[in-house]
């Protein structure tokens, strides 16, 4: 690997954090800023993590890769691809996403219900804390229950608990066979079928419904994929569909009405909400384009056991669904313990954090 791609600037990052601690300056931790549209606006000085980059170690037979936070996600994917492996949870790159931002946002792609989430693949992290220390939690082994699981806690924390400088992730071999199909089915029937198929050992690894058609990806060995294709029928679908879905490049995601992400129990029936919907994750994640009031959307999804995140920046004061009071109190308490001066991305997740 070229040396420009492999640079350890953690000492510099640590110094910047210590300075911020000294002057109580809030920091806006930023990689490629590819997910600026998510969460609340953060005041403060930019802490650019992109200089701290490169693959620290990768041994395909150990199924673990360790990379610094500034490493572009695309670079990581390429290195894995060469060895016939992948990040099974398919984190989106929204352009130039870095590994640090990938962990901080904790987003996963179409395979998530079957593979597990980004958080599920985190084995270890190095973190600069609100006490001005550069610490290591977890490690490079699959099983590790020593101490509290601070590594997985970092996933989806939006940088509010510390600067993630390095992460070790479990990786998996790519499936031998992958085949995408699409079937004509209305939404209600598609959801019923997905529930029925979910109880069977079918090699489905992605399922998206656009209102007219159910798109499926079948992955596994040659035998199981072919057998499932024969059984389910349908037309062949170009596999790039899943990338376009993951990266929000389908026409559904074109500018227009505000975009919401609904996270729901997978067997939730069709939701009556104004606007357009696109179902992903076999029913567990639904994209909504709607002018409906945030409170209305949230009332509807809360009733069925879900929550709603606003993906249109600046539209609502709390893009992430407000938490019950007691839960927020403990989240605040955790934030205060780990970031006592409140310098890390204050307010990005919630005004109170």
């Amino acid at each position, binding site marked *: 690997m070229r040396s420009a791609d492999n640079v350890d600037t953690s000492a510099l990052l640590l110094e910047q954090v210590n300075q911020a601690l000294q002057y109580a300056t809030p920091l806006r931790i930023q990689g490629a800023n590819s997910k600026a549209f998510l969460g609340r606006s953060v005041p403060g000085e930019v802490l650019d993590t992109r200089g701290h980059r490169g693959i620290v170690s990768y041994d395909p037979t150990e199924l673990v890769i360790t990379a610094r936070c500034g490493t572009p996600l695309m670079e990581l994917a390429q290195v894995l691809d060469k060895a016939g492996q992948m990040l099974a949870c398919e984190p989106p790159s929204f352009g130039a996403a870095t590994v640090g931002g990938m962990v901080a946002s904790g987003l996963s792609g179409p395979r998530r219900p079957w593979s597990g989430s980004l*958080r599920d693949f985190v084995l270890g992290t190095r973190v600069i804390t609100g006490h001005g220390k550069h*610490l290591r939690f977890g490690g490079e082994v*699959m099983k590790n229950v020593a101490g509290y699981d601070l590594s*997985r806690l970092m996933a989806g924390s939006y940088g509010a608990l510390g600067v993630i400088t390095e992460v070790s992730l479990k990786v998996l*071999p790519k499936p031998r066979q992958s085949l995408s199909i699409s079937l004509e089915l209305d939404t209600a029937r598609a959801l019923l079928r997905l529930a029925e198929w979910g109880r069977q050992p*079918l090699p489905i690894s992605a399922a998206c419904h656009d209102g007219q058609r159910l798109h499926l990806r079948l992955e596994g*060995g040659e035998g199981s994929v072919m057998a499932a294709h024969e059984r389910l029928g349908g037309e062949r679908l170009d596999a790039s569909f899943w990338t376009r879905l993951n990266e929000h490049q389908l026409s559904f995601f074109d500018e227009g009405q505000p975009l919401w992400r609904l996270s729901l129990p997978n067997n939730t029936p069709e939701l009556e909400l104004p606007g357009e919907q696109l179902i992903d994750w076999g029913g567990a994640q639904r994209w909504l384009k709607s002018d409906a009031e945030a409170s209305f959307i949230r009332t509807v999804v809360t009733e069925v056991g879900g*929550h709603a995140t606003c993906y249109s920046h600046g539209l609502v004061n709390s893009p992430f669904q407000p938490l019950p009071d007691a839960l927020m109190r403990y989240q605040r308490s955790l934030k205060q*313990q780990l970031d006592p001066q409140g310098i890390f991305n204050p307010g990005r997740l919630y005004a109170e954090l």
Partner: protein
Amino acid sequence: MNILYDERVDGVLPDVDKAVLLRTLRTRLPNLEVLHQREELKPYECDGLSAYRTTPLLVVLPRQLDEVQGVLRICHELRVPVVARGAGTGLSAGALPLEKGVLLVMARFNSILHIDPDARTARVQPGVRNLAISQAAAPYDLYYAPDPSSQIACSIGGNVAENAGGVHCLKYGLTVHNLLKIEILTVDGEHLTLGADALDSPGFDLLALFTGSEGMLGVITEVTVKLLPKPQTAKVLLAAFDSVEKAGRAVADIIAAGIIPAGLEMMDNLAIRAAEDFIHAGYPVEAHAILLCELDGVEADVHDDCARVRQVLERAGASSVRQARDEAERVRFWAGRKNAFPAVGRLAPDYYCMDGTIPRRELPGVLQAIAGLSTHYNLRVANVFHAGDGNMHPLILFDANQPGELERAEALGGQILELCVKVGGSITGEHGVGREKINQMCAQFNSDELTLFHAVKAAFDPGGLLNPGKNIPTLHRCAELGAMHVHMGQLPFPELERF
């Protein structure tokens, strides 16, 4: 240093007036079953790690959730430490009671509340046994994947508290990967829901933080787990090797071939012989190591994968490869492995099971070093190994009736765990730290890291009343241990190779 709670280094515990506590519990929770007499308390003095025993101040056995809440509120008011316990099968003394504390037994909450076959979830009370979930899900052709070896007895609440593993972790994950939601009570009895029926929930991922937190942050009162469709078929291959190194390389080769087995287990010669004597599984007793490789899934894929794995094993130098011909033989192959602990237990009056993890590539060196330690301490060690995910279970054989043998076994065990840390692994893969590995935590984490762990604890239990003395050592304890090492002027046993 003594493993039982030591107020001098573990922190002073509040003095509790047993009579006042008992009176308060009886007045405010008249239906709560409370054990307080010596002979009643005796059965609760240890968990699955029976070498360590402490008689609890009181044992409470609630049947209603409001009783659990009541107990926590009273203990919080009176400043009484609380140790929660499920089935008591844990192997790290995580549920070891305190002389000055209440033991809160959750075993009576053993109802399966709801199986939802369409959502593929089970909502259960914390005292439900691990295996009972799969049994309840079986009519829908679903099951709960994590299968710790104690699964017929261990409870799901304990599984969550310990982030329990099993033999199928490499493919199906640990407890944390198979949970959707837990209900908990905080130290002062406040109810929180962590996680959701959806696949994620907003805010910091407290579900991940609580999983494996060993009863230090809250008491689990309900658990919702994911269920999976039962694999269509499962096949197992048994390969024999004339060296442990070859077997280790074969494991890496299987992964390199792009195959993730459902289970991949290794046993060394002492373990093979013990298991064969006990179970007659048909193991090759001359082999230096055997690998058990289970492949599951759709029939056609499993068939192909078996052929691929067989080829890999043969190329890696296996002296024999046998595929179980039928279900009976598959079960017999597994029976040897699953009974390896009791089988090894027949070789000596006592055994002590370790639980370190290492990067797999370090296996040959670590096994060699363990052999060296075994000679040094003059105690036999049998090795069984979740080879797929690098989780070793060295079993140290000893006789507690021989003066000094338990101490030697502990010292040997401690050395093995520190070795695991040195090669980039962990002191515990699935059994937890509990009280057992409290000293080794000082080897795995530095004082700044431990300080951060204490900060996490303080966010949920600032008074330190939940399971004090477990999981995270005080800096004082680590300092005293460090002083002991320095006092000796060098690392113990300098003649042993370290890497």
